[in-house]
């Protein structure tokens, strides 16, 4: 009832105002009349009535205050008041809102990415129950892995199928690329190969038709029945209904499409998507050393992750013994037997992105957070400056009886108004930011599929950021202002109150904070830029530019496996004969692109790992790798001649110290397809980087392609082409030539240097983004410093005026003002350095070629800030020096 009457009062606010006014008028009129009746003169009667009544405005406000104190109405009134205030100073409002929108937008965008990559659960039923089964500590280079997600071998999967008490259901899956259409002009599509229980364990319902079930496993290798993803169905099949006759050609097999997956399901690898899902084909002969599947399951309700891990750990011995690959040396076999299985939460899926970008995203979030902090400090300073100019207004309010709480609330409402507007704009901006970032993350070849959604988590984050912002930049000025003594404020008028010195130190404190925080950002930016530059300019020991890599697949050429090597040599010769090709070579391992291939070796009495690559004779010339000793490979190294190897300097240092390596031998330990072999070392080459630019060079050995074990030969080869022509030109020429002579061969080319640079995407992004935010921070600091120094000069006008009058020179005045800035800079830089050193530890692992505590970087950042501080304070200092002492003093 009361609430109703209050709400009712709200709707007729203005009429109530008039009511109160009229009522009080009537009151005074009656008093006046009575006074006149009592014999006073009219003038006296009126004055007496007014005196008795007191201040009618105050009384009215007080009456209103009773309503206002009661809630909604007052809030609305304060907001309107605040908006009116901002309309009067649009520049301030615009600067504040834009700064906040940028700050909150950048934060929200990074958080959205982080959320999508890292935090969000898979769109499946009860995602928290999903577990991934992996070897504890990984397989440590044992066997062959076909992707980062493939953690287990087929025999292990079969073991798990037999023993999985903690799990209500299990499935195996792998990501794959398959050829859609005929081999010669088909195109690659992303697929996932899954076992029969995949969809039912995940609890995914078809959008149309049905999903893959256990009944589809039998035909997996001959006539697969597949499911298309929603995006593929929409974009490639026009969203037409699936009929029993819908068939496609996949890897030369006729496949039937039986259904469509729901729109939200993108697979289990976050950041990737699939076009189609097919049943997992289990070949008749299983490669027991091939890690090509990932196994997941759903935890039974009464099992925990730890208990499940313990269970799998306890039965691991039997499983790994049953799944033991053959053909390995006894040592490797022992290693395999000692592996243990563990259960890991897979509620948010698996992701390559996570590994690559997790840390970067957290660092970026911290960076944007710091930028926002600087922006807040700036806004707080602006608010303080604004507050001092509004001191009179506040003093009047308080003199009229407004309580401190009231004033405080008004000021807080003003700052939250800005924060909320900034946050709303920021969330809108964040969508654009995230998309730009995603585009940047997706390097030419592989696009990244992340659904960037503004879900409750993102909104909550943005709201938290906005409220923190508001609290940080709004509260301090509000508190200081509500504390000001109204009498002094009214007396001095322009806000030069006695408490000014104290307030002033708060502003200084904030400038010092800004300087130190931006120092951290600048140091970070410099570190990332220099790290990126180090990688870009790093000499990997081999030629990068003008190299094109071609992969040739010839499974349809019907070449007898015994003649693969001969066929590859013919292909190489054909490539070599294309005009513009200066050098060409085959290799079993493309360097610098993340792959690795190694064997355990015995050299004399020593034993250890070495990387291995089989190459044709032109390899070292093609890559410009200098031969230090011995000879290169030649035509006399054939499959029947003694096995020879060329090793790198690290190999010599590791295994052949103090000995002349030429003529020494190394023996590889047995592995399936690679029997134990004795190689004679015939040459030593210069060290080169191996699988990526980062990291040290491992011991490496090269062997002639002609001596590549026949058992390991496959219908494909990689050709490295050196040319002075642009990659695109040479690619076209080779494609034409191969297309003419061997139309059945699948070819694929890419530019070597470009691929290496693509792999530095993370470093490039960190460099670009951190510089951007560093520059933004520096700019904000400049604005903030300029503001505070100008303010300082205005406040010290009299003092400066007197100094000039007493004969201080212009340069002395400039020095006086700039010394102040210098002291803030010095303290800020000192704190900043300390903070940078602390923060640097977190970024150390993604830096290359320099330590986080790099003195040159620290010095440069400090110098840069000094320049900024000098720029920001010179103008106000110069203006102070131009002060006319008489005018300055007269103003007082």
């Amino acid at each position, binding site marked *: *009832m*009361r609430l109703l*009457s*209050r709400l009712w*009062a709200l709707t007729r606010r203005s009429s109530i105002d008039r*009511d*109160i006014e*009229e*009522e*009080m008028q*009537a*009151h005074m*009129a*009656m*008093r006046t*009349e009575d006074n006149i009746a009592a014999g006073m003169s009219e003038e006296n009667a009126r004055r007496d009535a007014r005196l*008795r*009544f*007191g*201040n*009618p405005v*105050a*009384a*009215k406000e*007080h*009456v209103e*205050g*009773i*309503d206002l104190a*009661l809630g909604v109405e007052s809030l609305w009134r304060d907001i309107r008041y605040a908006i009116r205030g901002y309309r009067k100073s649009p520049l301030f409002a615009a600067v504040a809102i834009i700064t906040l929108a940028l700050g909150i937008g950048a934060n929200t965008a990074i958080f959205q990415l982080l959320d999508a990559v890292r935090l969000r659960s898979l769109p499946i039923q009860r995602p928290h129950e999903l577990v991934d089964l992996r070897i504890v500590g990984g397989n440590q280079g044992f066997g062959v892995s076909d992707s980062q997600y493939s953690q287990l071998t087929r025999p292990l999967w079969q073991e798990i199928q037999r023993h999985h008490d903690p799990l209500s259901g299990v499935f195996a899956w792998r990501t794959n690329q398959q050829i859609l259409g005929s081999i010669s002009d088909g195109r690659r599509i992303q697929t996932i190969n899954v076992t029969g229980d995949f969809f039912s364990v995940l609890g995914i319902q078809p959008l149309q038709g049905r999903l893959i079930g256990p009944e589809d496993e039998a035909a997996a290798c001959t006539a697969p029945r597949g499911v298309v993803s929603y995006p593929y169905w929409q974009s490639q099949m026009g969203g037409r209904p699936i009929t029993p006759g819908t068939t496609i050609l996949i890897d030369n097999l006729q496949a039937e499409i039986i259904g469509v997956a729901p729109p939200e399901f993108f697979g289990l690898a976050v950041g990737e998507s699939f076009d189609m899902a097919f049943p997992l084909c289990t070949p008749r002969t299983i490669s027991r050393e091939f890690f090509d599947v990932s196994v997941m399951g759903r935890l039974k309700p009464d099992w925990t992750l730890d208990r499940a891990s313990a269970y799998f750990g306890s039965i691991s011995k039997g499983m790994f013994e049953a799944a033991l690959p053959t053909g390995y040396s006894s040592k490797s076999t022992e290693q395999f037997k000692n592996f243990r299985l563990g259960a890991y939460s897979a509620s948010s899926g698996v992701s390559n992105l996570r590994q690559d970008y997790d840390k970067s995203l957290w660092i970026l979030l911290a960076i944007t957070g710091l930028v926002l902090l600087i922006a807040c400090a700036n806004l707080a300073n602006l608010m303080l400056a604004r507050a001092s100019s509004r001191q009179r207004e506040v003093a009047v309010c308080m003199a009229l009886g407004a309580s401190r709480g009231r004033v405080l609330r008004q000021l807080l409402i003003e700052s939250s108004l800005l924060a909320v507007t900034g946050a709303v704009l920021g969330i809108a901006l964040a969508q654009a930011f995230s998309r730009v970032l995603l585009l940047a993350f997706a390097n030419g070849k592989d696009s990244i599929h992340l659904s960037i959604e503004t879900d409750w988590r993102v909104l909550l984050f943005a709201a938290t950021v906005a409220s923190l912002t508001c609290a940080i930049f709004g509260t301090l000025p509000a508190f200081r202002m509500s504390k000001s003594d109204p009498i002094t404020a009214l007396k001095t008028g322009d806000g030069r109150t006695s408490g000014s010195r104290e307030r002033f130190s708060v502003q200084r404190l904030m400038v010092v904070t800004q300087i130190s925080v931006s120092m951290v950002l600048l140091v970070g930016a410099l570190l990332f830029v220099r790290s990126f530059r180090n990688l870009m300019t790093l000499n990997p020991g081999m030629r990068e530019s003008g190299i094109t890599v071609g992969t040739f697949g010839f499974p349809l050429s019907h070449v007898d496996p015994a003649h693969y090597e001969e066929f590859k040599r013919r292909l190489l010769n054909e490539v070599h004969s294309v005009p513009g090709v200066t050098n060409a070579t085959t290799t079993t391992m493309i360097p610098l692109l993340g792959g690795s291939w190694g064997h355990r070796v015995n050299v004399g009495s020593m034993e250890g790992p070495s990387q291995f690559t089989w190459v044709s004779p032109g390899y070292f010339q093609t890559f410009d790798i200098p031969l230090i000793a011995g000879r290169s490979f030649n035509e006399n190294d054939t499959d029947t001649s003694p096995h020879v190897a060329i090793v790198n300097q690290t190999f010599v240092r590791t295994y052949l110290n103090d000995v002349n390596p030429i003529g020494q031998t190394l023996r590889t330990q047995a592995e399936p397809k690679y029997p134990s072999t004795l190689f004679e070392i015939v040459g030593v080459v210069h060290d080169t980087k191996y699988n990526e630019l980062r990291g040290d060079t491992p011991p490496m050995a090269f062997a002639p392609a002609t001596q590549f074990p026949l058992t390991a030969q496959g219908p494909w080869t990689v050709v490295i082409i050196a040319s002075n022509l642009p990659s695109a030109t040479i690619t076209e020429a080779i494609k034409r030539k191969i297309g003419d002579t061997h139309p059945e061969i699948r070819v694929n080319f890419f530019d070597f240097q470009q691929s290496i640079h693509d792999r530095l995407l993370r470093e490039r992004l960190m460099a670009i983004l951190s510089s951007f935010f560093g520059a933004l921070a520096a700019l904000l600091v400049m604005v903030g410093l300029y503001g505070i120094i100008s303010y300082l000069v205005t406040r010290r006008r009299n003092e400066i005026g007197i100094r000039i009058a007493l004969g201080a020179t212009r340069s002395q005045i400039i020095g006086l003002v700039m010394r102040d800035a210098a002291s803030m800079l010095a303290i800020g830089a000192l704190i900043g350095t300390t903070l940078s050193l602390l923060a640097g530890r977190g970024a150390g692992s993604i830096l290359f070629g320099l330590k986080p505590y790099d003195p040159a970087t620290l010095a440069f950042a400090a110098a840069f800030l000094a320049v900024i501080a000098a720029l920001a304070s010179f103008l106000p200092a110069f203006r102070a020096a131009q002060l006319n002492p008489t005018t300055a003093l007269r103003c007082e």
Partner: protein
Amino acid sequence: MAKNDLQGTLDLLILKSLAQTSSMHGYGIVLHIEKVSGELLRIEEGSLYPALHRMEQNLWIRSTWALTETNRRAKFYSLTPTGRKQLAIAEKSWEQTVKGVQAVMRFA
């Protein structure tokens, strides 16, 4: 003495005045209290209206615009049933206060 108690006293005076007459405008209440108290109590007119407004919001009194004897439009206040209850409570509390204060004053 705390502000609340003074305010409570004003509330009590207004409620009691309205209970003693049928309805009165603000100025009338001021005159009434002055007259009845033998000029001992003088209401601060500026604080009268906030009090009236608050009491109206609390539904202790209701108001209506009417004409005075001198044909002037004024707002007349009268007690509601809730107001009567509130008056009883306030009177009781006032008596307690008076008793208490007197006890202190008489303490030898």
